[in-house]
């Protein structure tokens, strides 16, 4: 599928054509392991055996299924299974063809969903896993296609090990951000994570927060929801709590140059969250003397938000209001390839965009955040 195949119903013809030529920086691409054994070359004998016998262990009930079985096998588009075998996202050549070439993608930001080193209950294994994942990404993905950029996967519940992992890769142009899961033992703004933010900022690396991980907490403040149709939405809701925590804990006062990219939560919630936090900050600011600015200002200066799953207002033009309210420079395009709910660059933003607006959203905002040429 190519961008020309997509139609923007509300956009005039000449804009559709210019969009087809547009370069895209995709801020959420999922590569995948063919199997866990792909990590064997990067693990010591001890951890190879651990991986094979005990496997990844996080606080979940099942060995392989999600507690909320997903909408599609491997969470993915049916046409994304590589013809040569393996799960969606595991075949570089097929990913190049189906995603990068077809959509004129200039850079793709890789986020490995599973396993992560961060939600491992055995923290030594988590650290070994993170290191192995990073070596695997480097050798098999970013070195083989310069369009693909990796995130340094860190065992973020162990800040010292996470910082060591950042130091191992920082300066390597294949790694453009640090990836942490969002379902953490404590909210991400809490100070146990600050050394990680300091290390990332020191190296000019944004923190990429793709929704994911397991922390044993209920998926809502009101308890465990029942259905995947809820859980899918609740992960977007939980990204609001992530942003709130980063702001309210004063992370951006401690580390003013820190950039945070919130991935796979959509973004239409950003304005109303800003209004709510500002309003109640007005009433309770004595509790947060460490904040020198209104919460909305940190949301606007230190955090960026990816588009997918694209917000679809009942009146499409309301999306323009959302971008106006949150700031157009905050918006980063993402496809979430190869997942079932992925967005296609030709189709997902159902809004008339000027050429300048298109350039910002589809590429230039991301270029600036990640310091890409």
């Amino acid at each position, binding site marked *: 599928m190519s961008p020309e195949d997509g139609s923007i119903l509300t956009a005039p013809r000449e804009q559709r054509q210019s969009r087809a030529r547009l370069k895209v920086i995709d801020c959420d691409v999922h590569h995948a392991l063919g199997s866990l054994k792909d990590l064997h070359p990067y693990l010591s004998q001890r951890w190879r055996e651990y991986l094979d016998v005990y496997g990844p262990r996080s606080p979940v009930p099942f060995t392989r299924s999600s507690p909320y079985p997903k909408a599609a096998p491997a969470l993915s588009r049916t046409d994304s299974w590589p013809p040569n075998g393996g799960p969606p996202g595991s075949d570089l050549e097929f990913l190049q063809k189906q995603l990068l070439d077809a959509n004129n993608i200039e850079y793709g930001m890789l986020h490995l969903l599973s396993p992560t080193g961060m939600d491992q209950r055995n923290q030594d294994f988590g650290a070994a896993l993170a290191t192995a994942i990073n070596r695997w990404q480097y050798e098999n993905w970013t070195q083989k296609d310069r369009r693909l950029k990796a995130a340094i996967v860190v065992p973020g519940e162990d800040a010292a090990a996470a910082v060591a992992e950042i130091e191992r890769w920082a300066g390597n142009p294949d790694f453009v951000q640090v990836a942490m899961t969002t379902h953490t033992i*404590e*909210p991400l703004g809490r100070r146990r994570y600050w050394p990680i933010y300091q290390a990332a900022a020191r190296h000019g690396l944004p923190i990429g927060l793709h929704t994911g991980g397991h922390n044993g907490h209920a998926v809502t403040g009101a*308890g465990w929801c029942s259905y995947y*149709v809820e859980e899918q939405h609740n992960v977007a809701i939980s990204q609001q709590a992530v942003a709130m925590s980063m702001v309210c804990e004063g992370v951006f006062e401690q580390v003013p140059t820190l950039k945070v990219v919130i991935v796979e939560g959509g973004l239409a919630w950003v304005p109303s969250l800003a*209004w709510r936090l500002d309003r109640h900050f007005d009433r*309770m600011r004595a509790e947060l003397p460490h904040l020198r600015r209104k919460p909305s200002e940190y949301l606007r200066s230190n955090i960026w938000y990816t588009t997918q799953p694209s917000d679809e207002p*009942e009146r499409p033009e309301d999306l323009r209001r959302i971008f106006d309210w949150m700031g157009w420079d905050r918006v980063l395009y993402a496809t979430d390839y190869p997942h079932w709910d992925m967005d296609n660059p030709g189709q997902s933003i159902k809004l008339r965009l000027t050429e300048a607006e298109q350039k910002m959203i589809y590429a230039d905002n991301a270029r600036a955040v990640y310091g890409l040429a």
Partner: protein
Amino acid sequence: MSATVGGIDCDVHPAVPGLTALLPYFEPYWREQITVRGIDGLDLASFPSRVPAHGRADWRPAKGKPGSSLKMLQAQALDGFGSQLAICNPLYGAQALFNDHFAAAVARAINDWLIAEWLDREPRLRASMTVAVENAELAVDEIERLAADKRFVQVLFLAMGDAPLGRRHYWPIYAAAERHGLAIGVHAGSAARHATSSNGWPSYHLEDYALNAQAFQSQILNLIHEGVFAKFPTLKVVGIETGFTWLPNFMWRANKTWRGVRAEVPWVDRPPAEIMREHIRFTLQPTDAPPDPADMAVVLEQIGSDDMLLFSTDYPHAQFDGTEAFPAGFPEPARRRVLVDNPRRTYPRLQEAMS
């Protein structure tokens, strides 16, 4: 006089003084338990009364908790806004106790105290009934005990309890509520069963308070997708003190997600936003309004319904200054509906009592 004259205030908070003061409303067994064990102090940690946000400076009595004086509530909430009626939502620990029997006893005591010391003394007051929400059998007993008293118009839950409110063990409560024309009120607050965010326990009270919006969002999803409104087609659920300016973006995402995954919940046979517009209501305060008053009307247009908001002052909480309960930019034509029409439709028992 305020522009809210004749309105129905759907959220005021008489302060429960404490278990010792409620002793006359308990059975002898519980009087002894409470006294011998020294049980007291079930004020919810979600609303510490000394926090300025939870008691407006000019609405605080010289002594005691904000909301503890009937005279002040009469003068400031009822006369002050010219309200024809106000619905009392007592926030006290019955919903958060683990001992179901004790929870039921505390709920009953709160209700009887409210009748004797507030409702019987002020004819403009209506109330939510407190029940042992985590034990449907005991909760229904209490609903049946009070149902004949039409001054009770709602059953009160917290936004964050044991489990999401769509789960079936709560359904007998909804059946009883629907049978008697009672709304389900879901008030901000946590029973601390779960971290207030799915990302763990935040550090600050501000975050806990703000997170009531996210919790109520999750509640709406669960109520809809468990099929509560398919089963109870006339039930209304009111988000009290949860904010509502997040509603447009929440509706958009709920519709989109349902479109993708609706095969999982075949009883949800129309877009969630439609179901929300029919069944979900919100109290006006706090209005987390956009900074430009001109955008307030935009948000209401995006909500796409004039039926969903219910006037409230949230007395004695400090949500606004003076008597400007409507946020700047709130369109005049919609105000009458918010003040009177929507509360009447949401709480049918108000009409019976007024006729």
